[in-house]
């Protein structure tokens, strides 16, 4: 009797979310699939998907850019997180605020300010000219886009790694030292494996937004580098080619799922990626 009442309440409690997620999470994805497989008159077609072959270079370029950005973020971010975790508690809390601040500042502002700094007529460039060097021609190159990704998403790499570093039980490190590991060996054999979940989560948090960005390539790449995000945005905001746009979105979604699956292979434990 009591149990029944309880489950009735549970059912009532669960219904709003079930309805909500059916309408606003599942249905939109079905709409994407619907648009990707139909033409303007609503007939079923594979043409949108097949025509994506002309975008293959875009996909490869986006993948390449975000791969490089993610790797560089990892190479910069891991040592940074490690150094941060070695400092005193007081310094750590200050550094945490310093790390969180850029994460909270809108991406638009940070990207734009990076462009203002590095623009060919910007501050760095005028400084170079004033000391007699040629002016900077950086904006509008592929390197600028990658730098933008690294700059924008680095904190998202550092934070999860830092959190997992902090959580490591000190006794593991002591044990490893007792058992004759030098600090390098401890780092490689104890700390690194223990922080894999953090690394995986950091890689996800850098890779996914950088493969789908469009603002960074618009501003820092000068619109010359058409990433997947730019392609999608253009189909929806500048042209009315929703069907192509939906097809590109669908393929990108699948691409990201595959990448995530590969990344998850790296973390031994089946722990969920918690952001």
């Amino acid at each position, binding site marked *: 009797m009591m149990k029944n009442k309880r489950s009735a309440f549970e059912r009532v409690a669960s219904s*709003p979310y079930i309805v*909500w997620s059916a309408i606003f999470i599942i249905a939109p994805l079905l*709409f*994407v699939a619907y648009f990707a497989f139909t033409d303007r008159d609503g007939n079923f077609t594979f043409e949108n998907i097949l025509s994506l072959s002309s975008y293959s270079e875009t996909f490869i370029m986006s993948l390449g850019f975000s791969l490089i950005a993610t790797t560089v973020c990892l190479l910069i971010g891991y040592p940074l997180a490690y150094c941060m975790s070695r400092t005193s508690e007081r310094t750590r809390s200050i*550094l945490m605020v310093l790390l969180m601040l850029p994460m909270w500042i809108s991406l638009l502002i940070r990207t*734009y300010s990076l462009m203002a700094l590095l623009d060919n007529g910007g501050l760095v460039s005028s400084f170079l000219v004033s000391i007699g060097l040629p002016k900077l021609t950086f904006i509008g190159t592929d390197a600028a886009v990658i730098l933008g990704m690294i700059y924008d998403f680095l904190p998202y790499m550092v934070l999860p790694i830092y959190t997992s570093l902090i959580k490591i039980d000190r006794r593991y490190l002591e044990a490893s030292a007792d058992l004759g590991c030098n600090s390098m060996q401890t780092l490689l054999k104890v700390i690194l494996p223990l922080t894999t979940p953090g690394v995986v989560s950091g890689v996800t948090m850098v890779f996914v937004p950088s493969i789908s960005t469009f603002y960074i390539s618009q501003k820092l790449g000068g619109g010359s580098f058409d990433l997947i995000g730019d392609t999608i945005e253009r189909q929806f905001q500048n042209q009315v080619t929703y069907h192509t746009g939906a097809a590109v979105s669908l393929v990108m979604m699948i691409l990201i799922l595959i990448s995530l699956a590969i990344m998850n292979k790296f973390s031994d434990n089946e722990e969920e990626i918690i952001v």
Partner: protein
Amino acid sequence: MKFLSRFYIFIVFAILYAPILVVVLFSFNASGNLSSFSGFTFYWYKDLFRSGEAIEALKNSLVLALCSSALATVLGTLASFSIAHSKSKTYQTIMKSVTNIPMMNPDIVTGVSMMLLFVGVALIFKLNNVLGFWTMLIAHTTFNLPYVILSILPKFKQMDKHLIEAALDLGCTPTQTFFKIEVPAIMPGIISGLMMSFTLSLDDFVISHFVSSPDFKTLPLYIYNQTAHEVKFSMYALCTLMIFTILILLIAVNLAGAKRDKKPTAKQRRVKGGAAK
């Protein structure tokens, strides 16, 4: 070694902050160009407030963030309640994976799919002008929900199940049990979920970009529109104000957190630390 590590931290943070500092500094620049600093002025701040647009956008942003985070928290609390109490494993897995979708999907796909939904529904029902506050509210609530659920769900797991049984035995209805026993127990999760979704919603640009209308422009949309045209230095003033607001908020949150951390005894802290995992 210690010096090296400090130096490394310093260098990375210096690079991270250089562009931001440039924006802050040049928002006070009298000459209004980036190549040289010619004098100190508040002109751009006055210029910013001259047109009500920025204030209007700020107001919209706050209203939207408040509404969507509140709605997401209520829905998310109920959802995590039902997930946590469900006996069926399949139900739990399905709900959890559905919840993960908006988090795993890149923002642009969420935005595009939402837009297609709204535009599609508008086409079917021959509606006009569907985009606006309500579509923004729906979109923001949807992408906030996973974060709320993820911060509340663990709290349900840590809760002592006997308490619920005791309450039910002592004659509470399930509704009373929920409000009197469970909600207080998961309160920290609710609060952190609420705060997280508030900030996420305040910050969101990509999703809003696809589901917004001229009726209801939020601050990030305003900034995007500004940077797409001739950028005046009042934009820099706006950015500076935002940066300082965030800084103050962060410090306040941190101080409050430090104060709270001091209170619990060592044992409690260990429990808490374990819970954080």
